[in-house]
């Protein structure tokens, strides 16, 4: 298999879907000749033309809403929100319209749309361009929420997202874009709602999302040398959540460390901790669940502070050591 980047994997999924299905099209700011702020759609204008690679004005609410309207009437729009922080402008259409219409209309219409958007910090873009707000949409019935960490997952899950008949929130991560991985050519699907064990181990279940999966993998190498063998579970889709894989892992290891970049308070790490603590896994826990997550601060600009604001490899290592040392 070839190694390609996360960016290329996403672009491949988009292109393959568009070649196959005329009803798939893309909208967004700067996705045309510019190729998107992070280069994801680079070259696609040349292949698909401006009708289907549709450059929009800077109007996030109309972009999201036009996707809803197009989806209701038979298209399968994918729109790119340039930074996930700007969902603040598009939310009415996503939450009050897209998420609810299928239910509110008694199931008489579907809303097959995908919002692709990059979240996360690490590029020095400061407080308004670095948030991880995925838990907002995870809270909303009617939405599907995906957060792929690898190139392979990104491509397979994006194909599934586009094929899905519900509004799908597809959160990419700025620091994932350049990561590389083995990715098959051609179309393949990774089922929505299936977690992936990115590393198996026996001591601690580290449930990590998005870019934190990569940091956990690095931490695992360090910990392995110390005889601590962590299992890394990547939920991949937050909604629907593959509780079984997570719970089974926790039952096996008896210890759970949840790692997300998003701010700890009321973030998806809380949901993961709550799920683990209320399920049968509770009885298997040898140690309280530990959450490692973003600091309760806006993301600062200065690079050292910026790093301190989100979990780093060393924080994961430390947390695991502490868990193992306890009792």
């Amino acid at each position, binding site marked *: 298999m070839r190694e390609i980047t996360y960016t290329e994997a996403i672009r491949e999924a988009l292109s393959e879907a568009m070649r196959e299905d005329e*009803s798939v*099209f893309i909208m967004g700011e700067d996705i045309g000749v510019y190729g998107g702020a992070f280069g994801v759609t680079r070259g696609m204008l040349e292949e698909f033309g401006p*009708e*289907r690679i549709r450059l*929009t*004005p800077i*109007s996030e*609410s*109309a*972009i*999201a*809403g*036009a*996707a*809803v*309207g*197009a*989806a*209701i*009437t*038979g*298209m399968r*729009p994918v729109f790119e929100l340039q930074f996930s922080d700007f969902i603040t402008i598009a939310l*009415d*259409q996503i939450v*009050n*319209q897209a998420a609810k*219409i*299928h*239910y*509110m*209309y*008694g*199931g*008489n*219409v*579907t*809303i*097959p749309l995908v919002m692709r958007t990059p979240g996360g910090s690490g590029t020095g873009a400061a407080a308004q361009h670095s948030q991880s707000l995925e838990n907002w949409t995870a809270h909303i*019935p*009617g939405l*599907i929420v995906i957060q792929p960490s690898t190139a392979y997952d990104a491509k397979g899950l994006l194909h599934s997202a586009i094929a899905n*008949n*519900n509004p799908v929130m597809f959160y990419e991560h700025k620091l994932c874009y350049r990561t590389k991985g083995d990715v098959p050519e051609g179309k393949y699907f990774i089922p929505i709602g299936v977690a992936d064990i990115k590393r198996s181990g026996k001591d601690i279940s580290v449930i990590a999302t998005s870019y934190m999966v990569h940091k956990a993998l690095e931490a695992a190498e360090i910990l392995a040398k110390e005889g601590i063998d962590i299992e890394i579970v990547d939920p991949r889709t937050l909604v629907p959540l593959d509780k079984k894989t997570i719970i089974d892992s926790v039952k096996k290891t008896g210890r759970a460390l949840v790692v997300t970049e998003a701010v700890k308070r009321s973030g998806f790490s809380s949901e993961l901790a709550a799920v683990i603590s209320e399920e049968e896994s509770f009885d298997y826990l040898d140690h309280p669940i530990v959450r490692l997550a973003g600091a309760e601060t806006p993301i600062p600009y200065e690079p050292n502070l910026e790093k301190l604001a989100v979990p780093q490899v060393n924080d994961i290592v430390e947390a695991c050591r502490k868990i193992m040392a306890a009792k």
Partner: protein
Amino acid sequence: MSERIPNKAHLDDAALIEAFSKMWIIRQFEEKVDYFFAKGMIHGTTHLCVGEEAAAVGSGAVLRKSDWMAATHRGHGQTIAKGTDINKMMAELFGKTSGTNKGKGGSMHIAEIETGNLGANGVVGGGYPIAVGAALTARLKKTDQVCLCHAGDGSTNEGSFHESLNMASIWNLPVIFFIENNQYGMSGPIKEMAKVKDLSIRGVSYGMPSITIDGNNLIEVINATYDAVERARKGEGPTLIEAKTYRWKGHSKSDAKKYRTREEEEMWRSQRDPIANFRKQLIEAGILTDAQADEIQVKATQAIEAAVAFAEAGEKPTADQLFVDVYAD
């Protein structure tokens, strides 16, 4: 073609009688709903469009069934005009599974995709971008469908109005933005909430053809909408129509209407009743006799009674319905 009441859409006598009848159906529908609400027999809230029937019917009359329409929270008239089944609508208000939305939507969300009714919207301004999206579908699928986007005066101060009209204009989409300017957004008088005499002037910001009309004059509404629809079908892009009108009743369930005078209300009721005025026009043109006009009104009442009976006969959703249709397959 020569019609006895000339109109750009060339609606013949039968079609105009049909429009007259629809206005009555809408009014009776609303009066009935008002009654049920007052009695506490319907749940939730509602926004009635009595006094605004010509705007709904005149604009809806020039659409095809395959065209689309997005309605507002004050949408009963708009959806009836587009052809939504009034039985199912009433059943919806009664919270029955036989309702348009299987009892899950209620007054603010009535939708019937089969007849092109993309749904009413509880969010002021929420329908604008959705209508743009529907029009985009027509464009991408190369059909000649158009989308009629209903909205209120107050909603033209939402950001979604601006973003959507701009997007529709630069993409030349087949959408008609139809503003029912009933003078108030809940209690906010539009003459204080915007510093322009006519809201249609706002089309200038988008290089969009725009017009202000008497929304209580059925023929004027038909003509303006017809022009806009024709333009849209030909690929010449969107139009903004401002139809001046008035809501006779309060904003929603309980409203002391302190923000307006009784004289103003009285003037609109007595002099600018869209139904009475069109009735007169039909009779003067010799299309209807007095007796025939009365009969249409009676038939409308009967249609509403039938709708109520249909609604009453329907079933309440069972508890398991709560979890049905959260996600599509």
